[in-house]
């Protein structure tokens, strides 16, 4: 049994310790906002937070998350969908197919939490592992900057 807090809710999961976190999220708990992309930690679609730090859920075994706190796109804001990044995403019309956006937003949220005023290079370095096959990178960067500006307002 693996105890883990997910989006603020305690869970005791009877799963294989080697099961990837992504499997537990999607198949056991029904939290399907986090996407399966490559399964090799190469695309970033499955990014969630582990104690606030982005990790690729597709390669993170359940034994690593034991006793820790996981945040998924469903739990990023309260109410759900109301994070400044999510509002900026909508305002800028960032998504095209939208498959990567949960991972993009989770990485960007961690970036802004650590660095409220990221430069273009900061954004490029932190977001380099989140691939958008539609090529919306210019809008992603614009939305991150818009959210950073929003977060700076008193």
């Amino acid at each position, binding site marked *: 049994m693996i105890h883990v807090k997910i989006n603020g809710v305690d869970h005791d999961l009877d799963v294989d310790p080697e099961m990837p976190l992504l499997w537990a999220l999607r198949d056991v708990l029904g939290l399907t906002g986090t996407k399966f992309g490559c399964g090799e930690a190469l695309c970033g679609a499955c990014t969630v937070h582990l104690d606030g730090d982005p990790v690729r859920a597709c*390669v993170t075994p359940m034994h690593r998350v034991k006793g820790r706190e996981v945040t998924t796109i469903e739990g990023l804001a309260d109410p759900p969908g109301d994070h400044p990044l999510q509002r900026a995403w909508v305002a800028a019309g960032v998504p095209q197919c939208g498959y990567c956006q949960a991972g993009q937003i989770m990485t960007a949220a961690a970036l802004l939490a650590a660095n409220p005023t990221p430069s273009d290079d900061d954004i490029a370095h932190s977001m380099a*592992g989140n691939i958008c096959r539609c090529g919306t990178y210019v809008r992603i960067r614009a939305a991150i900057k818009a959210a950073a500006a929003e977060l700076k307002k008193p």
Partner: protein
Amino acid sequence: MRLAIVALAACGSATAAPPHAPVAPPIARVASDQLQAPAVFAGIADRGARSRALFGEMAKVLLHPRCVNCHTPDASPRQGDAHELHDPPVVRGSGDRGVVGMMCTTCHQDHNLELARVPGAPGWHLAPLAMVWLDRTPHDVCEQIKDRTRNGDRSLADIHEHLAKDRLVAWGWSPGWGRTPAPGTQALLGELAAAWIETGAECPP
């Protein structure tokens, strides 16, 4: 080709050492993917020469792709035996462990993932910039690892402990899917390091 071999053999006989010149004891030639035990070097009478030869053997490991790919002179680790830039692109960050969103442990676990083919070991990170080994010579590496201003303030005993027992170093011999392991074993590297230190920890020229 046969003519060339004959020519080389002729050159060898023409340059034979004079009768009274010091003759180096014979060290068996082995492939670069094999690591020789310290006993192989016991026949080198001069202590300093023996120490330098022992480090040369250690350098087979230290300059192996599994080691130098994370001892790089710039922001990026390398991958593969041809030292390709890490893909996806990553930067070392101020602590040699990446930047937010792209920390080493964002993807790398404390063990190899055979199905996903992602390598991993405890404490996965880049060596600091002071410890560059990529494209360096055995002399350069030797001088660096003895220099406490560039080796993390480690004594020679600490260096031996690190080489012989560190779990991230150990990954070099169990690198996972498709990767060439470092030659020999970690235990043998530890024996070579102990013998190198015992003989004065001299550096090859």
